[in-house]
């Protein structure tokens, strides 16, 4: 264990010294620069002037202020913070992939096109779907793409459908996406066990419904056992069923969403397929669809002709572009490397071990932190602080901060919204029993400290670079730049 130096929280600009230099560009062609004075900027940008070493030390120091998957157990529910294999990074950095220009001639891009093609084939098989676009840059971007595809599909049939049905347990992106695409959101209440209420659904679904968006397993970590009935109700009304794939880690290799009756779904490569989150991105997404929706996917798709791969611009029914160039290809290489490392059977192990891990935590914690649901969970569980903690005025936020002091990242908190004081834990399949045991001990220690000395827990964290931060001031008087 090395000691992080005392917090030197200066910004790079505050370390700047006029005329100190880092990197230079000495290309002699500079002498030929030809920009009229009237088109030049009037003053230099206020950027730091530092030596290269200053910059490296500044950012290396910053890195050490972070918790990360590599350094800490990071059980953020719905985020699937699994191990990000180093090999994936090396694969994506291969010069042949990294240096390929997005407008390269197809004949120059055969390796990348083959990779995208084979990745598409494998993902379609895993999802039980017929066609897939790998262009969306993230999960929310995938949802946007998916709803545009749905819209185009109904328009092609001459149907005007204006509504998206979203259960109240859904991710906030679902209604936000619906509104971006010009649909109205109809919220329906879930049943007490967190499942979609089919009777409620039937009351709201009809000729105006375009899409039912649902998360499987849902945000409480519960599988929608009545999914066949749900899909049937949607299909009878002529609507499509969209699966938010944020929780696909619970199903991968074990259940094909396409067989459940799902018509279109998205994938988050940075969740299920082990690509790193990078502190908030880049991610990558995909929309997989049944064949009747395929003509509307963004173009180009990649086709195989003989032993050559080429861009396929479709028959004109595509929704168009959702991004300037092809998707986040660098991330796709990582996801492909991940798939290569798994046989069909081993993919199923991902789902199985993630489910075992979540239930193991749930069963060891439920006496102290009651589980919202009485049944087994899938890959994540939702707990709440027990009555003994709430009696002392302790909240989920306090539990989260107490965990940080014990060297564990906090679970997702206050989501899903339908659970008061939710603590949503997703351990993922890559954590060992030993780590889970340590986490359980830490959670119990937080509880015990909270009961013995509630104020101490309310003041946590005590050991991190900063203590609780004033978010009210940050929002009332925003300071967003130097």
């Amino acid at each position, binding site marked *: 264990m090395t000691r992080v130096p005392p917090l030197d929280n200066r910004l790079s600009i505050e370390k700047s010294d006029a005329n100190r230099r880092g990197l230079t560009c000495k290309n*002699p062609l500079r002498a030929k620069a030809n920009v009229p004075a009237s088109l030049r900027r009037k003053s230099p940008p206020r950027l730091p*002037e530092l030596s290269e070493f200053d910059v490296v030390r500044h950012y290396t120091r910053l890195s050490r202020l972070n918790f*990360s998957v590599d350094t800490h157990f990071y059980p953020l529910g719905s985020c699937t913070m699994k191990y990000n294999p180093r090999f994936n990074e090396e694969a994506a950095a291969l010069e042949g992939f990294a240096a390929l220009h997005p407008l390269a001639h197809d004949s120059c891009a055969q390796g990348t096109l083959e990779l995208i093609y084979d990745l598409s084939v494998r993902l379609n098989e895993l999802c039980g779907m017929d066609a897939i676009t790998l262009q969306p840059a993230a999960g929310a971007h995938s949802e946007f793409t998916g709803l545009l595809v749905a819209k185009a599909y109904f328009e092609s049939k001459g149907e005007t459908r204006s509504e998206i049905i979203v259960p109240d347990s859904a991710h906030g992106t679902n209604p936000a996406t619906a509104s971006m695409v010009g649909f109205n959101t109809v919220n329906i209440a879930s049943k007490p066990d967190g499942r979609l209420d089919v009777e409620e659904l039937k009351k709201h679904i009809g000729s105006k419904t375009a899409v039912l968006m649902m998360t499987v397993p849902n945000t409480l970590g519960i599988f929608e056992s009545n999914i066949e009935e749900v899909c049937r109700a949607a299909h009878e009304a002529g609507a499509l069923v969209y699966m938010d794939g944020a929780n696909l880690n619970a199903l991968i290799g074990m259940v094909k969403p396409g067989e459940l009756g799902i018509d279109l779904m998205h994938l988050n490569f940075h969740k299920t397929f082990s690509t790193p989150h990078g502190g908030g991105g880049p991610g990558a997404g995909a929309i997989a669809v049944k064949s009747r929706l395929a003509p509307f996917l963004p173009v180009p798709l990649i086709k195989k002709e003989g032993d050559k791969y080429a861009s396929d611009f479709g028959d004109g029914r595509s929704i168009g572009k959702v991004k300037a160039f092809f998707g986040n290809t660098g991330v796709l290489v990582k996801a492909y490397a991940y798939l290569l490392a798994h046989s069909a059977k081993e993919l199923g192990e991902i789902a199985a071990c993630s489910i075992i891990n979540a239930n193991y935590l749930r069963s060891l914690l439920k006496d102290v932190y009651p589980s919202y649901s009485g049944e087994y969970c899938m890959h994540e569980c939702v707990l709440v602080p027990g009555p003994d903690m709430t009696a002392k005025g302790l909240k989920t936020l306090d539990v989260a901060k107490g965990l940080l002091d014990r060297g564990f990242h906090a679970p997702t908190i206050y989501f899903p919204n339908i659970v008061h004081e939710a603590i949503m834990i997703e351990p993922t399949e890559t954590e060992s029993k030993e780590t889970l045991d340590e986490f359980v001990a830490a959670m119990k220690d937080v509880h015990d400290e909270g009961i013995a000395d509630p104020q101490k827990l309310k003041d946590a964290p005590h050991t991190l670079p900063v203590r609780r931060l004033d978010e009210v001031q940050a929002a009332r008087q925003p300071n*967003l730049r130097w």
Partner: protein
Amino acid sequence: MYTPHTKKDKEEMLKTIGASSFEDLVKQVPAKFLWPKLSLPAESLDESQAAALLTRLAGENCRPLSFLGAGAYERYTPAAIKAITSRTEFLTAYTPYQPEASQGTLQGIYEFQSTVCALYDMDCANASMYDGASSFAEAVRAAVRVTGRKKIVYAAGVNPQYMDTLRTYFAHSPEYTYVKIPMKDGAMDKAALPALLEGAACIAAQTPNFLGLIEDMSGVAEAAKKAGALLVVSADPVSLGLLSTPGEYGADFAVGEGQSLGLPLAYGGPYLGIFSCKKEYVRQMPGRIAGLTKDKDGKRGFVLTLQAREQHIRRDKAASNICSNEALCALAATVYSALYGPEGLKELAEANSGAAAYAAERLSSIKGVSLKFRGPFFNEFVVSLPVSAGGLREKILATRGVDIGLPLAPLYPELGETLLVCATETKTEADILKLEAVIKEAL
């Protein structure tokens, strides 16, 4: 496979759970859906086998001497950037939901926002968007929200892929109209502006424009303002080491493709959407924003702020559905800017301008080849060819391993047989002489 579970682990864990078997745990899934047949490889590859396969695929992408630009630029990535962005504390962290445990990421975002503001001369910036096209589309959406108008007046020199993306973003609303500002010698015909602006939400422009020309933006913001419209500008960040800034000429929203700041081309992504605006529109910014504040002890710290605009709170009333940003790419761009500093960025911009100027000079010396436009350009330019540009490109690529640039006919048929040629700081005099030689030889 990356699961650590031994058979014994699983048995013990199931026992602790009180389940008789794994199947017991997943009873909520109708049995007929469990364990479908998967037609996927029955054997996984070990790491060396996977490395061999991926190395073969990477090798099947050819590596021509390339003069392609058109929105994605070949850059040298300094070693220090790779060293910092591969720090796993940055690489494997999530969105900074627990600020006390994410000060590195948060301060990094704050420094990124500041860097963008400095380069673009704007008041505020967000933590980044997916790419230049999505930033552009979101900025136009913001202008539409602010003005309540639905007419978008755009320059013919805006990257056509950005316009396609914008149209997709508005696809659901047929009431949006698009009015193109005509081109005059490859640049925006400013004289045509006043007649087009009535009832417009914004002027959407790009400089250097898609054809490489530096737009003279003087008076454009004033024309927009007079008509009650806003000015949205997309500008290449490296060009701003040298060129007049969106802040200087009065842009309301300034966006750009941050790939320029040292990110690999990677066949289209991940890139970096830069998004900035004047302070009166701070709440119109989509996505994440980091802010500086104090902790309980009065110590400086950083948090995500202005969150109540976002999808997880506003749901269907949010400005955008975006959750993620391109944090690691933003970090790379911030480090790039810090490594080069104001002087280094100016040198880079000069090298781009110089390389392109030299390439234009050499190419226009070839018989039958001429510069299409007269105006000043930055790091790319358009030449007219006496033969099919597409045919010439394919021939030289196949026989000489040089990608001479992007044929423009599919995007701008009115320009005839033309080629968009880009030269960044990665090009040497010898590279440009080679370009000249292979074209001369092929004509």
